[in-house]
C-alpha cells in the first residue's frame, strides 16, 4: 500500500510539472491583462522543438529548442494581440490551430508518417542526495527530472518578484488598470510583450518537459488540452504563483489516479480516468469562480 502511495505521489509530481510550468507563465501573462488561449499551441511547439533539439544536440539542446519555440509562438500571438490589438480569444485559437498544423507538417516531413516511435535522449530523473531518502515524500519530491526542480525554484522567485519589486508592481498595474499605468509612465504594450515572451518561454519549456522528461517522444497533438487546463489552473490558483503551483499538484493527482487504478485493478472504465482531469477542471472552475477576483483588465483590449 505504501509502495502504491509512493508511485501515486511520484506520478502526481511528474504529471504536475508541465502543467505548473505552463500555468506559472500564464499567471504572469494574465496579470498583465492578457489571456493567451494560444498557450496550447505554444506547449505543442515546445514539445516538437524539444524532441528535434534533443535528437540533434542532446537534452540541453532539447530544452533550448523548447524555449525558442515557446518564445516564437508567443511572439506571433503578441504581434496580433498587443501590437495589432486583435481579439485575444480568436487570435489565441488561431495560434493553437496554426501550431497544431505546423507541428503536424514538420513532424511528418522530418520523421515520416505517424507510427514510427522516435527515440531521443531524455531528461531522466535526478536524485537529490539526502533529501531523496526522506521516507514517503523523498522519492516523489526529489527524484524527478530537472524541470521539476525548475518549478521549485520558480515559485518563490516569481512570488517575490511579483509582490516585492517595481517590475512586479508594473505588471500588476497594467493588468488592473492599463490607463492608470500609462499615466504613471509605464508602457502597457511593452509590459505585455515582456509578459508574453516570459509566458511563452515557460509554455515552451512545459512542452519540452512533457516530451523529453515525461513521455520520451513526440506525438501529434500530444499537448492534449494541457494549455487550456493550465489556464484553468491559473484561475484556480487565483493568479498567485504559490496558489497556481498547488492547483497544478491537484491536477497532477487527478491524472496520476489512472496509474493507481491500473495497479490496484479497479473495475472502472479506463476512459473515465482519462476524462477525469477535464471533468475536474470544470468542477474546479465552477467551485472557484464565484470567489475569484481576476485582474480587472483581463481580456480587454
Amino acid at each position, binding site marked *: 500500500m505504501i509502495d502504491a502511495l509512493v508511485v501515486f505521489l511520484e506520478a502526481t509530481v511528474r504529471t504536475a510539472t508541465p502543467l505548473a510550468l505552463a500555468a506559472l507563465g500564464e499567471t504572469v501573462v494574465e496579470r498583465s491583462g492578457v489571456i493567451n488561449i494560444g498557450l496550447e499551441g505554444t506547449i505543442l511547439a515546445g514539445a516538437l522543438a524539444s524532441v528535434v533539439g534533443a535528437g540533434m544536440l542532446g537534452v540541453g539542446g532539447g530544452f533550448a529548442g523548447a524555449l525558442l519555440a515557446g518564445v516564437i509562438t508567443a511572439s506571433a500571438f503578441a504581434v496580433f494581440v498587443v501590437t495589432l490589438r*486583435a481579439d485575444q480569444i480568436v487570435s489565441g485559437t488561431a495560434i493553437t490551430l496554426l501550431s497544431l*498544423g505546423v507541428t503536424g507538417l514538420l513532424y511528418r516531413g522530418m520523421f515520416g508518417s505517424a507510427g514510427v516511435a522516435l527515440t531521443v535522449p531524455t531528461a531522466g530523473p535526478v536524485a537529490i542526495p539526502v533529501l531523496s531518502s526522506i521516507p514517503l515524500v523523498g522519492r516523489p519530491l526529489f527524484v524527478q527530472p530537472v524541470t521539476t526542480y525548475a518549478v521549485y525554484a520558480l515559485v518563490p522567485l516569481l512570488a517575490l518578484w511579483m509582490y516585492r519589486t517595481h517590475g512586479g508592481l508594473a505588471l500588476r498595474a497594467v493588468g488592473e488598470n492599463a490607463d492608470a499605468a500609462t499615466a504613471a509612465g509605464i508602457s502597457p504594450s511593452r509590459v505585455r510583450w515582456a509578459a508574453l515572451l516570459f509566458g511563452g518561454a515557460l509554455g515552451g519549456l512545459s512542452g519540452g518537459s512533457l516530451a523529453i522528461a515525461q513521455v520520451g517522444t513526440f506525438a501529434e497533438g500530444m499537448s492534449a488540452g494541457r494549455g487550456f487546463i493550465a489556464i484553468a489552473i491559473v484561475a484556480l490558483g487565483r493568479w498567485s504563483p504559490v496558489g497556481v503551483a498547488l492547483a497544478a499538484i491537484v491536477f497532477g493527482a487527478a491524472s496520476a489516479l489512472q496509474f493507481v487504478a491500473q495497479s490496484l485493478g479497479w473495475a472502472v472504465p479506463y*476512459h473515465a480516468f*482519462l476524462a477525469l482531469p477535464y471533468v475536474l477542471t470544470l468542477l474546479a472552475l465552477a467551485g472557484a469562480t464565484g470567489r475569484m477576483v481576476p485582474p480587472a483588465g483581463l481580456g480587454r483590449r
Partner: protein
Amino acid sequence: MPSGSFARGAARKWGGRVLLVGVLLVGAAVVIVSALSVFAGHDPARVLGALWSGSLGSPYAIFSATLVRATPLILTGLAVALAFTAGVMNVGAEGQLLAGAAAATALGLETRGMSGWLTIPLALIAGAVAGAVWASVPGWLRRRFGVLEVISTIMMNFVALYLVGYLVRGPLQEPLGIYPQSSPLPDTVRLPLLGGTRLHIGFVLALACALGAWWVLRATAAGFRVRVIGANPDAARSAGMIDVGRTMFRTFLLSGALAGLAGAVEVMGVTYSLYENLSPGYGYTAIAVALVGALHPLLTAVSGVFFGALEAGAAAIQRDAGVPSVLATVVEAALILLLLATVAIRARWRRPNPVAVASLISLPAPAGDRS
C-alpha cells in the same frame, strides 16, 4: 465580449465586397499552399493540381467530395457563427458534434426495423438534442458561476472524445467486440443520397439551417436579442428589456443543437457507424468557417463550401502528391490570422486610440472605455 466587435467590424467592412474578399481569400489560400509546398520540398504546381482535381476539378469531386465535406462544416460553422454573434465563445462544436453522433447512432441501432420515415427524423432530433445537452453544461456554468466558456467548452470536447472512446468499446461496440466502433447503422436511419453521388440529403438540410438562422437573426425578436447581447451586453442589461443570462443560455443550446445535428448527419450520411476519429476536427475548422463567413449565416454556408473544397483537396494532395493533409489546418489558421490582421489594421486606421487622443488634449482617458 470582444468577438462581437470583431464580427461587426468584419460584417460592416465587407458589406458590399463579398465577392472581392472571396477572390482574395482563395488567392491567399493558393499562395499559402504553394509556399508550404515549396517549404516542404514538393512541387507546388503538382500540389495545386491535386488540390484542384480533388475539390472542384470534376463533378465527382464537387458532389462526392467537396459538398460532402462541406455539410458538417456548414452546420458546425453556423453553430459557431450564431454563438459568436451573441458573444458566446463556443469553441466546443467538436464535442457537441460527437455527442450528436453518439446519440444518433444509439437511436439508430435501437430502432432497427422501424420505418425510415420515423427513424430518420428521430435520429436527427436525437443528435440535435444531445448536442444541446452537451452545450448546456458550459452554458449553465457560464450563467450560474461565470465560468469562461472558452475553457469549459474545450474541456467538454475532451470529455466527449473519451465518452465516445468508452461507448465504442462498451455499450455501443459491434457485437464481435473486435473493433472499437459501433455496428453499421441499419438502412432505415441512413440519409438518402442525391442522384447517384455520395452526397446525402444532409447537405440540403444544412442549407436550410443556414436560411433559417439567417431569417431568425434578421427578422425575429429572438434574433434581435442575440445580436444585441453580442454587440453590447451592458447596454442590453441596463436597457432592462433583455434577460442577458437567459438569451446567452438559449444561444448555447441552439448552437449546440446545430453542432449535434452535424454529428448526426455525419454518421447517418457518411460513416454509417460511430468511432473515435469520426471528425477530423470539424468543430475546430468551424471557427475558421464562421469567421471567414463574417458570422453571417448565408456567407457561413458559402464559407463552409470553400473549406469543404480545401479539405477535400487536402485529402487528394495527401493521396496524390504525398503532402500530409494537416496542410489544410495550417491554411485555415493562416486565413484566420490574415483576417484578424486586416480587420485590426483597418480598425486602427479609422478609429483614433482614445487614450492617445486624451493625452494629446491632456485630459484623463474616457471612463466609458471600461465596462
